[in-house]
């Protein structure tokens, strides 16, 4: 009975991990600028990796490899949002302008060509990049 419970716990954790990693992949490929991509990479990818590693930890049982897996899970939970925050902050300090909805009222989708900040001069005054540290 306990083997059946563990089997379905592994199945559910792996399915949720694959689902959240799929959401992360779609977000990184489809979202308009680097800040939105850093948002989805910090949250859904951390959750997907954590659930998949939890499935591995449940499957390995009580042995010393489980300690490695739980250590890896906590390490991923701490360092993956930190890395996404560092990437988004370096994008902010290089004065990359965030994508706003009123810039693309004439195009069909998010303009991937405009996020070098060359034609977004009217929104620069509300975004201080490196001075506020």
């Amino acid at each position: 009975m306990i083997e059946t419970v563990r089997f379905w716990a592994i199945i559910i954790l792996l399915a949720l991990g694959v689902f959240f990693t799929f959401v992360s992949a779609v977000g990184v490929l489809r979202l308009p600028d680097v800040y939105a991509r850093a948002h989805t990479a910090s949250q859904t990818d951390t959750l997907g990796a954590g659930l998949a590693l939890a499935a591995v930890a449940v499957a390995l049982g009580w042995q010393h490899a489980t300690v490695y897996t739980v250590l890896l899970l906590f390490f991923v939970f701490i360092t993956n949002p930190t890395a996404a925050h560092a990437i988004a902050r370096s994008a902010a300090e290089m004065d990359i302008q965030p994508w706003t909805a009123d810039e693309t009222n004439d195009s069909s989708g998010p303009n991937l060509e405009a996020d070098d900040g060359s034609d977004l001069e009217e929104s620069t005054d509300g975004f201080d990049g490196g001075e506020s540290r």
Partner: protein
Amino acid sequence: MIPTDINEIFLFAAAIFVLLAIAMFYRAVAGPTTQDRLLAVNVLGTNTVVILALLAAGLDQPWFLDIALIYALLNFLMAVAISKFTVERGGVL
């Protein structure tokens, strides 16, 4: 202890993670800024850590977890170091 079906399920999940990691190469190649490419490589590294852990459970070889742990350490160090290098090059790095 673990039945064979569980091992095949872990290998199938690892195959799906490999496909999602290959999809990250589009953003790593076509990303407009340096931070887009760095973020794509960071997500790809996290997927690689998960793939190594799933292979450790699927192939029943627990020493893959050591490689996954070292890979996670180097992935975090890469993300922080390159994002610091792009802002102040010549400063710390």
